[in-house]
Each structure stands twice: as C-alpha cells, then as structure tokens.
C-alpha cells in the first residue's frame, strides 16, 4: 500500500522550561510535497527537526517517518533521509574530498556520478581543507552530502544559510527537481522568499507553538495582494468608496481597504488573486491616475493574515 504521509507528527511536546521548546505539535507532510517551516530564531524549528532525525526524544507524542518511529528506529529511518544540519561543522578529516568519500562510504553509496554532478552544479573546490572553507562553501558541501544520497525524504535545516543569490537559485532548482521526482522535502527557514518559491505547504511557528498552516492553494485565494489606486478626481474617489461593488459580495469594501488618503485620492486594498478581473472591470468605470500592485509574497501574507489572527 502506498503511504500517504512521509512524516507524521502527533502531539509532540518537548519542554525545555522557561517557555522554550515546542508544544503539542500536530502536522503531516504528504508524500511528494515540499513543506516549509517558518519561524523566527528560537521558535523551535531545529527542535522539530531534531525529533524527526531521532536525535532527541519528545516528552510526549511521537514522530513517524515512513511509518517508522523516529526515535526507536532512528537508524532505519536514515536510509530514507537526506539531511542538512543547521550547524555546519564537519568531522575532522582533512579535505572536502576526504569528507565526501567517508560520507558516501557511510551511506553505502557506490555510484559517484550524481555526487560529481552536484559538486559541479554548486561549483565547489572539494580539494580545499574543510577548516579553511568559508561559511557558504561549507554549506554547499553539506548540501552535496545530503542530496547525493538517494533518499525519499530530504530534511533541510535552513539550507540556504550563507549561500549567494546564484547558489540559492541552484538550491531552489534542486528542490524543485526532487519534488518533480516525487520526493518529499521538509525545510525550515526564516527567509520567506525561498519557501515561497518551492513549498506546497507552509507552517508558521512562533515561540514553540504552531501559529498557522497554509496550503499554497488556500494562500492564493486569501486576500493578500495589495493594490493601490490613485483616482484622477475627488469625485471619482468618493464615488468609488460609496459604490456598492458586486465583487466579494460577502465582504464589505471597508474590510478590504487597508489605507485611504483623500488628499492624494488614493486607496490601497487587499484582494485575492482570483478577484483581480472583477476588480479591474470595476475600475474601468472610473478615471484613474495611477495604479500599482505590491509583489505577491508570503511575508506579506504572514504579516497581514497570520499576525492578525494571533491578536
């Protein structure tokens, strides 16, 4: 039977006291999806990942990886997992070549062609001594070590740390390739951009609590797109505000508007992508002096929707 979920977290709590830790986490990562975990520093991202890797043991609750208990079968689950740790210090073995050689032996890897392919893509000089590598170079080594294994599930703890924008794109590309191959990717990040480009589901956590879990489909339908309209005349400005708009009938216009400015004859409102046509049709009845649209972003989503929900 094909399993539906690659990772299942049930009632997981790990209390480090003084409000630190993670509390009653429940979520699933479906097979073949890219799952993003977003949170500020100290919100519990790494703690969550450590449970998945079987490095630590929850006070209560459990984590299943492909149906196996992550703590009890921590060695077995590793055959399914490629892992990028949050800390990037390597074993004391000399050069990058030595490290990758030992790592591939530990993984029982025979075919090195994909590894060499990855080394080319990330442009790493693996003959350099590990100790002298820069942060970004070390991160790229860690990425190669994780992706060279033929895993089903990739668990990445802040994988883009220290990468330049070009390499970050390479990473995003790689994640999308893995997704296309039907692999599951779980990644943590505090950078919205990379999660936005890759993830099907994003979970926001804060101070050890799950704040919200957003599916991409849902996120695309929520009003989060900000449009700013400048009207040509005071008359049009007033008329627009008074008009009974047929779009979004169940939501009053006042709730969509985030900013009004009579002096500049300007209105800013948040709309879901799906309503843009209606919105523009409406606007065609007015004389418009300016129109702008803020970029579609999860960050925006987080600040306008998620944080509002918290209050």
């Amino acid at each position, binding site marked *: 039977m094909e399993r539906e979920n690659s990772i299942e977290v049930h009632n997981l709590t790990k209390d480090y006291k003084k409000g630190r830790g993670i509390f009653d986490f429940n979520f699933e990562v479906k097979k073949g999806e890219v799952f993003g975990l977003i949170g500020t520093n100290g919100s519990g991202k790494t703690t969550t990942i450590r449970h998945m890797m079987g*490095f630590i043991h929850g006070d209560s609750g459990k984590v299943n990886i492909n149906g196996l208990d992550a703590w009890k079968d921590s*060695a077995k689950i590793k055959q399914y997992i490629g892992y990028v*740790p949050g800390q990037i210090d390597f074993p004391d073995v000399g050069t990058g070549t030595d490290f990758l050689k030992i790592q591939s*032996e*530990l*993984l029982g890897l025979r075919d090195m062609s994909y590894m060499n392919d990855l080394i080319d893509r990330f442009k790493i000089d693996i003959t350099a001594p590990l100790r002298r590598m820069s942060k970004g170079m070390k991160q790229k080594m860690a990425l190669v*070590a994780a992706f060279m*294994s033929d895993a089903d599930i990739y668990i990445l703890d802040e994988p883009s740390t220290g990468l330049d924008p070009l390499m970050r794109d390479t990473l995003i590309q790689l994640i999308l390739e893995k997704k296309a191959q039907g692999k599951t990717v779980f990644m943590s990040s505090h950078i919205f951009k990379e999660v936005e480009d890759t993830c099907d589901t994003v979970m926001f956590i804060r101070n050890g609590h799950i704040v919200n879990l957003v599916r991409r489909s849902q996120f695309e339908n929520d009003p989060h797109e900000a449009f700013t309209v400048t009207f040509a005349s005071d008359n049009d400005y007033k008329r627009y505000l008074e008009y009974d708009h047929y779009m979004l009938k169940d939501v009053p216009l006042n709730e969509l508007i985030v900013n009004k400015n009579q002096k500049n004859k300007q209105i800013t409102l948040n709309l879901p992508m799906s309503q843009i046509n209606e919105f523009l049709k409406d606007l065609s009845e007015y004389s418009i002096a300016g129109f702008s649209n803020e970029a579609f972003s999860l960050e925006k989503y987080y600040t306008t929707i998620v944080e509002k929900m918290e209050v």
Partner: protein
Amino acid sequence: MLSLPLFKQTTKANGVLWSVLTVVSAALLAQFAALEMTQSLLFLIFYGVMAMILPGVYIMVSSNKLFASQIDRGSLAYVLSTPKKRSTIAFTQLLFSVGSITLLFLILTLVHIGVNAHSPLDLTVAGAAAGVYGISGNLTAAIILKINLSALLVCLAMSGVCYMFSGIFNLSKFSIGFGGAFVGISVLSNMMAMFGSLGVDVLENFKYLSICTLYDYKSILLGTDDWITKGIAALIVAVVSYTIGTVTFCKKDLPL
C-alpha cells in the same frame, strides 16, 4: 557492530597525535634503555612517570573527540544522518580507543625487547634506583611484557573514564574538564608518590589519589602477583566506565 568508514574517520582525526606521542614515547624508552647514563633511571623515570603521562595526554585529547567535541561542534550529525545505529557508532569509537592504546603499548614492548636484547639491563642497579631492592639478574622479555601489560590495563581504565565523560557530556568543556582533571590528578599524584618512594614519606600518600597505583611494576620486578590483582581491578574500572559511557550516549538527547 563496527562501522569501517567511521573507524577510518576517527583514525584520521586522531592519527597525528597518536603518531607523535607513540614516536616520542618509543624514542624516550629506547634512549633510557640503551644509554648507560640513563639505564638506571629506566624504571623510576620512564616506567614510573612517562609511561603514564604520555599515553595520558593522548587519552585525554582523543577521548574528548570521540563524542563530546563532535556533539558540541555538531559534526556528529553527518555520521548520524546515515543508517548507523548509535550503538554501532559507540562500539566503533570504543574499539578505536582500546585498539590505539593497545597498539601504542605493543610498540613500546617490542621496542624495549629489541633494545634490551642488544644491551641487557642489570636489574640490581635499575631496581635500586626505583626503590626496589634485593633483585638481581638481567631484565627479561617476559618482565618487559608484564610491565607493559600492567601499564596498558591502567591506561585502559583512564581511557574508559574519559570515554565515559565524553559520552555523558554534550559540551567539550565539561568532557575535557572532567576527563582532563581525572587524568591530570592521576598522573601528577603518581609523580608525587614517586618522590614519596624516594624518601619523602608524606608524599607517598598521594598514591591513593591516583588510578596509576593499580599499575605496579615493582611487584613485577619483585616477582609477586600483586600486579595481577591490581590489573584486574583496573580492567573492571575500564569495563564499567566504557559501559556507562556507551549506554548514556545511546540513550541521551543529542543537540545536533
């Protein structure tokens, strides 16, 4: 049970220190045993003090690297992200420790037997210098073997204790702090006790602070069996502490 790649990795990480200390120990031993000027001090200085200090340094530093320092730095995450059981990892590290220390003493034994075959040592003088009287004849290969075995057992006990601290603590500073204090106090007390045996009686009480007391080359020179009982005691310390270290490492939370 054993992971060969990890064994290689641990060997790479500790190889330089091991080689340096082995070469230095072997060279010192060869010099003490070969030169007429130093021959009489062979037991007092080399087997009495050096045979504990030099391996002690190796044990202190390498044990910390087995677990604690790798957990502290996070590098153990790479080994643990492969399908290797924690017990396999612990067993591999244990085997490396026992193996490397045994090899060190094996080399010392062979070097000494070789040098001794060339210029046999008169036990009367060398014994007297170390405070062992009433023995005569030449040093034999059997005695050399026994002395090194006795020293090896005590070093394994020290290694066990350091391994245990490395397995218990997640921070290098605690592992090296406790392990280093244990080895340091043992080795230094052993030295103080040596001065005690030279005539400053009060200092002899220092032997009670040192696990090196279980290493008894004097009993071997005198032909008594004390060293065997003490050796077994050292072995028990080693087995118990290796076990505690392994079990703790396998069960604890790892901040990786």
